[in-house]
């Protein structure tokens, strides 16, 4: 074994040994570095307002209205274009977010701690609606819901956690895998498992009966609430393998709707970017591929730690989304992902693939050698501002990101 193989093995072991738990609910303004009202962090690699796609711009506008920096979306667009706003990637400040992933000053964030390694990451609550800020929706329900997160849901979850202690996310991820989910496209069981954990405590700790009803009404029917917690699970695990010398394992894959970017362990926080791929999928009634924005969101952090497309075999029905005839294709995809990863998890397994461990530790060398690019399960946002989610499907991470990273890695060794 050489230096690289040893380093990659270390990364694989850490990914598998990670034990992320939901430990608290905090405010962005209190935990994110260098933040003020004019700081907007977003999904994907760095991007300017000028280059932002429709749904990303739309989400930024919504967030500025939410923060009270503008009265209307039109005014918000002017503020965003004025140069007053500091845009930065979520990934560069310890958080992640689905789709546009816009995270701002006043938002309550879930704090997820990797109990094995001590590192913390943050993520906003999932909006559990296709009319969501993260999809760039301009629907009137969006901003009141963000305020409700801030005033009702956030404090309630915080109090519940204080009462009951951390909620073990690794256990929920592991169980959901055995219940037909890969935790990126399908997260219904994960959401129910989470609800089952927290609901009894909420009943005890939320004093206001009407508020308790609102919370239960929001959480109980949500098929997606756990998406964000699964992402934080991914980020907390992946952050534990950052900056390992000689390590060629990917620590982040993310899209801002314009560019796709990856980070690699030994190369620290450098982004390697390429234009976002198109998403192959199916659409809600009335929409088609012509309406689709290119790939978007930090949610590919799930694939980075072996969930989502990597674990397609756990969610075989999903393959019909991109036109596969046979569900056998799901296992073929997971098998394919095992070709580009360092190893397979020892305890996070896919029962209908004879307890195959999920693929862990995407090695850029293997991606470049085999030209098998990570497959990503994803939602589809409308390319124009304000529409929200219009479908779901899959994309492939662009090979060029991995090739650039490999070149940079070789250069870094001299």
């Amino acid at each position: 074994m050489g230096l690289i193989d040893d380093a990659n093995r270390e990364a694989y072991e850490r990914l598998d040994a990670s034990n992320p738990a939901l430990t608290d609910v905090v405010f962005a303004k209190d935990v994110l570095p260098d933040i003020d009202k004019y700081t907007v962090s977003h999904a994907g690699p760095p991007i300017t307002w000028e280059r932002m796609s429709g749904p990303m711009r739309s989400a930024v506008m919504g967030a500025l209205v939410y923060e009270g920096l503008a009265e209307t979306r039109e005014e918000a667009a002017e503020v965003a274009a004025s140069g007053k706003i500091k845009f930065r990637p979520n990934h560069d400040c310890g958080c992640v977010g689905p789709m546009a992933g816009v995270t701002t000053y006043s938002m309550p964030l879930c704090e997820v701690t990797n109990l094995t390694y001590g590192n913390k990451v943050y993520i906003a609550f999932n909006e559990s609606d296709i009319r969501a800020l993260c999809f760039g929706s301009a629907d009137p329900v969006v901003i009141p819901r963000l305020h409700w997160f801030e005033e009702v849901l956030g404090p309630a979850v915080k109090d519940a956690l204080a009462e009951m202690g951390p909620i073990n996310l690794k256990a929920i991820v592991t169980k959901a895998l055995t219940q037909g989910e890969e935790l990126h496209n399908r997260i219904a069981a994960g959401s129910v498992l989470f609800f089952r954990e927290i609901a009894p405590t909420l009943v005890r700790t939320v004093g206001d009966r009407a508020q308790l009803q609102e919370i239960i009404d929001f959480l109980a029917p949500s098929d997606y609430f756990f998406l964000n917690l699964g992402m934080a699970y991914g980020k907390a695990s992946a952050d534990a393998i950052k900056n390992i010398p000689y390590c060629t394992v990917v620590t982040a894959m993310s899209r801002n709707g314009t560019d796709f970017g990856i980070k690699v362990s030994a190369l620290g926080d450098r982004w390697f970017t390429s234009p976002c791929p198109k998403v192959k999928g199916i659409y809600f009634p009335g929409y088609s591929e012509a309406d689709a924005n290119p790939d978007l969101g930090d949610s590919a952090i799930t694939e980075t730690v072996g969930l989502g497309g990597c674990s397609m075999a756990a969610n075989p029905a999903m393959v019909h989304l991109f036109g596969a005839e046979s569900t056998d294709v799901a296992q073929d995809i997971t098998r394919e992902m095992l070709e580009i990863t360092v190893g397979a998890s020892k305890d996070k397994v896919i029962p209908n693939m004879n307890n195959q461990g999920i693929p862990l530790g995407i090695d850029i060398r293997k991606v470049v050698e085999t030209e098998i690019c990570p497959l990503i399960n994803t939602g589809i946002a409308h390319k124009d501002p304000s529409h929200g989610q219009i479908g779901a499907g899959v994309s492939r991470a662009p090979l060029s990101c991995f090739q650039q990273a490999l070149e940079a890695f070789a250069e870094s060794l001299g």
Partner: protein
Amino acid sequence: MPIITEVWRNTYYDSVTLMLGSSMMEALPGIDEAMVLMGTDRNDTVIRASGLLADGCGEFGSNDIVIGMRADSEQAAREAIAELERFLTSKKGSGNRKAAAHTLDGALREDPGIDLAMISVPGRYARAEAEKALDAGLHVMLFSDNVALEDEIALKDRALEKGLLMMGPDCGTAIVNGCALGFANVVRRGNIGLVGAAGTGLQEITVLIDRLGGGVSQALGTGGRDLKEDVGGRMMDLCLEALRDDLATEVIAILSKPPHPSVVEKMKRIISTIEKPVVACFLGSDADALAGTHAVFAKDCEECARIAVRLSGVGLPEKDEAWIAGTAAREAALLAPGQRWLRGLYSGGTLCYEAMLAFRDAGIPAYSNIAIDADLLLDDPDVSREHTLVDMGEDFFTNGMPHPMIDLRMRVERIARDCAQPDVAILLLDCVGGYGTNDDPAGALAPAIVAAKDAAAAEGRHLCIIASVTASEADPQVRSAQEETLRSAGAIVCDCNAQAVRLAFAILDRLDTAEPVAENRVNALFAARLAIANVGVDPFAEAFRAQETPCVQVEWKPPAGGNKKMADLLSKLKDL
């Protein structure tokens, strides 16, 4: 355009299936827009905003499917709903998937019991793939050619360190544990163990052994260069030792072109440690090549098989010299004056070589693209002159083209061209079957034989077309069926290539005119369940499956998709 809405009560399908259902409906004639969704609260907004909800469609709940359409007619909508029902209830796709991986690692994950890698990737990638296999503790059959000599030596040294078979490069034929590898035949299992440095020769001998009532324990290939001075018989040594120690092997047969003298000495030393009978066929060498050992010399494949079968304790039928004499007299009488030349158009290299040696021994000059005598080398392999024997499996012909044992088109074309020459009397053909080769080589040759004979007849000439089939009854092509096809087309069918050459001579006559290694894991392979990773050509995997030998197909691609810059970077980063 009418809006038609239907609600299916208390029916559930997942959203992916329903979305596919609506796309399917939209593709139907007469349907402008369609929506199929569960009536959940979450979907409620979408459903109500769709404009596809007919007045009075009634209420729906979260366990109901809501179907809405804008259609040309009520009739079109009804048909679309019926189609949706069929779509939702039919089972899609098939459960048949062939085990496939993208890398050797993937194949081993798929089946950790794999013990042999069959590698047929382009030559310049072969060393890397073979190294991976050897490092994983796999025996290797390297079918690929165009592998550098130093790579061959390095690979074989690595294999010898681990006591593994490294058959090849350019190893076309082997039979391991009864499984035909590469171009090889399905022959009876028995007590004759073979090791050969020549592919079709090994096929010819194993098929003859089968036909004579004998059987094969193992047939190992070393690759054509193994017995040259540089490679020094590295693999021959290991194979001989393995056959020596193999209980199922009672007779050992060796086949190759003449080994380098230094290699012969090594072989003699090993043969002296073998108590079993040994028969050696060094095509083109002197009968005393192995003098001082108990090895029996055979001059060609036919003799080698006959001696081996005799030594193995099975009775053998006599050669039919009377048939040859009678056939030759009849054929010679049909030939016109001026018809004097023979053309041997071969797909099997060893068979061509065997014929060439017979010509040399008979003192009849024959031109060839693989001639030993430089004077007899064809200037242009594509153009025959006088007596000519062409190995059409040689690099000149196969560069970028499929091997003539797989694709017979080149040979068919050459048959027509050579037979059109009025001074040609005899056409010699091989017809090689077995796994990996063409499904029906005789069927491909037959029309060419008929056409050549008809064309000659139209000009008042007879053509003697002599063929032999290298295949067994158990081969997919079935020997007797191949022979019948050739016979029906008008060819004279001999039992083997050597006999075919003897018949040709009879017609022409009438015209006047390595050091032992510490560990040896080969015997363990013989005792194991054979499982193969097939890295490269897919038909080999089909062949393994047909023989019920477990096989994982590796969907091989060049590293980094052939991007040289990236491939160089990768190999630099590998050794860190």
